[in-house]
């Protein structure tokens, strides 16, 4: 099983002139350490306008910086919002190709459609249409990358024949993923032959059911491009020698994240539409975060505590059939940077060896022409 780190890049108030710069600097320092420790991925979200919760509207720039400072870790754009008012699909293809080139073929491309009115409304995008635009764009991207020239006459965008350049370094193209928050989106992922980038906190049985469903449908998929058959999930990570300290700090981390998430305006909250039948990420974090920074006890799937507990938790996750766990390391800087780094080091030393060879292998991209 692979391990990644996952960034919303949350920035606590009050926002002084140095606050955002320092948060970005902390995140980059964590990424550099993650690379040295053998983590496999760093993912960064694309969110707009989500005060405190996520100050990460341009992950491609953050990830390019990470790529320039690291050797092996893969960089995941998780996700590109496939809504034309927010990202024209040609620009997604172009930016992704450049990031894949400058990272030496280390890019993973996540796709999605946003789940908040704050973002969709801010760009005057119609929530009713985002499922359709995602489906159209996710099938166009591989063709833009693989075909020398490409023309498109669709519903959400059209373009006369042009060469979308440069082409990605990985051939035929970087792995494609879709963010999975609402139940059933993993089936959409399977239907398109792309990876399921889980962003909700399911229980073990639910996760296993979803992975099985994904793998089953994948066998009969109509691939959007090259098949990426991976399933990833997200978790919090706080690892400490003392289990009680690890759990307490980890719960503060997850509770703080959830409390910040609860202040977002989901699309479903104000815009009645079957396109957003669930709150996505929010219901579970709301349930778990009625009190800021506190929770009654760690849920069985939460990767917080001492190495022994975290190993047991992750073994349970591994048994569900997932390929990767991506960790949120901090929320609103509630955990001091030194403790975050120490947690990562301890995890790499004591937990990772139970799941993979400790020495990180240089990732060799599929041979480029």
């Amino acid at each position, binding site marked *: 099983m692979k391990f990644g780190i996952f960034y919303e890049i949350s920035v606590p108030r009050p926002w002084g002139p140095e606050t955002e710069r320092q948060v970005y600097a902390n995140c980059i320092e964590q990424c550099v350490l993650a690379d040295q420790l053998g983590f496999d991925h760093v993912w960064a979200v694309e969110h707009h306008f989500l005060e405190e919760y996520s100050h990460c509207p341009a992950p491609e720039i953050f990830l390019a910086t990470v790529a320039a400072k690291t050797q092996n870790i893969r960089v995941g754009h998780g996700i590109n919002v496939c809504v034309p008012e927010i990202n024209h699909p040609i620009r997604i293809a172009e930016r992704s190709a450049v990031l894949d080139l400058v990272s030496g073929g280390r890019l993973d491309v996540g796709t999605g459609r946003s789940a908040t009115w704050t973002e969709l*409304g801010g760009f005057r995008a119609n929530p009713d249409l985002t499922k359709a635009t995602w489906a159209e764009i996710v099938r166009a991207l591989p063709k833009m990358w693989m075909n020398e020239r490409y023309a498109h006459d669709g519903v959400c965008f059209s373009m006369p024949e042009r060469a979308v350049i440069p082409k990605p370094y990985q051939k035929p193209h970087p792995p494609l993923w879709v963010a999975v928050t609402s139940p059933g989106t993993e089936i959409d992922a399977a239907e398109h032959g792309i990876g399921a980038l889980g962003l909700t906190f399911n229980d073990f049985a639910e996760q296993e059911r979803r992975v099985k469903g994904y793998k089953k449908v994948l066998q009969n998929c109509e691939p959007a491009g090259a098949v990426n058959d991976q399933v990833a999930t997200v978790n919090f990570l706080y690892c400490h020698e003392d289990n009680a300290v690890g759990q307490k700090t980890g719960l503060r981390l997850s509770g703080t994240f959830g*409390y910040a998430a609860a202040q977002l305006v989901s699309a479903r909250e104000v815009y*009645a539409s079957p396109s957003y039948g669930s709150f996505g990420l929010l219901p579970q974090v709301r349930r778990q975060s*009625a009190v800021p920074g506190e929770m009654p006890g760690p849920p069985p799937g939460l990767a917080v505590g001492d190495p022994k507990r975290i190993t047991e938790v992750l073994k349970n996750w591994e048994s569900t059939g997932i390929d990767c766990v991506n960790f949120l390391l901090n929320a609103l800087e509630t955990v001091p940077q030194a403790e975050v780094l120490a947690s990562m080091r301890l995890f790499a030393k004591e937990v990772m060896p139970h799941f993979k060879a400790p020495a990180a292998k240089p990732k060799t991209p599929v041979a480029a022409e």
Partner: protein
Amino acid sequence: MPIFGGYKPTADGLPVIKALAEDRIDLENAQVLALTFEVLSEAAIAALPAALHPPFPTYCSLILRRHDDSPLGPVTTAELRLHARATNHYVGYVLGGFTDNERVSAWLENGYGKRLAVAETVSLKKRHYGFEANVVAGGKTVLNAVVENPTQIAGVDVLHVQNSVLAVLDGAPTLIAEEFEFQIKEARRGPAHYHTLDIAAFGAPTLTVSNHLPATWILADWSYMPVRFVIDPLKPAVAGTRKLGQPAAA
């Protein structure tokens, strides 16, 4: 930490609750129209009690609720709510509103601390093109909105959050949790067009409408619930929420 509202109320001028609502009232076939719009944030944050978090964008819903039959007679209410979070729970903080039934006005004020002024006209009508909402108060039209060609949607897609009402309880300003239960039988959604939208008349003189959202209409069996929770408006809701029958936190 998410920011809090900036309003620190005193008891002055607030409705005084004589006896909190203790009975559940079930009403069949209520029509409920929700007119939703964003408002500029600075004034909205200032208008929210300090117990509550604003969401971003800050937004309001103007809710018209029509009961053709009730123990107090037929009634239509129109109330403006500024949306917020009490800890992580959605609430609609009631700014003000109107009703066409004097007895209902007294019942809401006595039981929930919700002051809805009696107006000449408070109406929610089905029209051939959709729905029309009208409020005339003091000889002046303060709301005239139409929802044209609304499309049918699933009831599960429509949300109606609970109210939070500021009133005086036991001599102190208190946020009353006015809770509802409802079973949606039919739901529609469409764009709202406003001939008149005077939110100042609904208790929001400082707010500015900045962006309109689609309106929803539902037909539902609607229940008014006994009050179970109250919140100290001056403390973060996480510390100031009290279940009735239990002592207030120190």
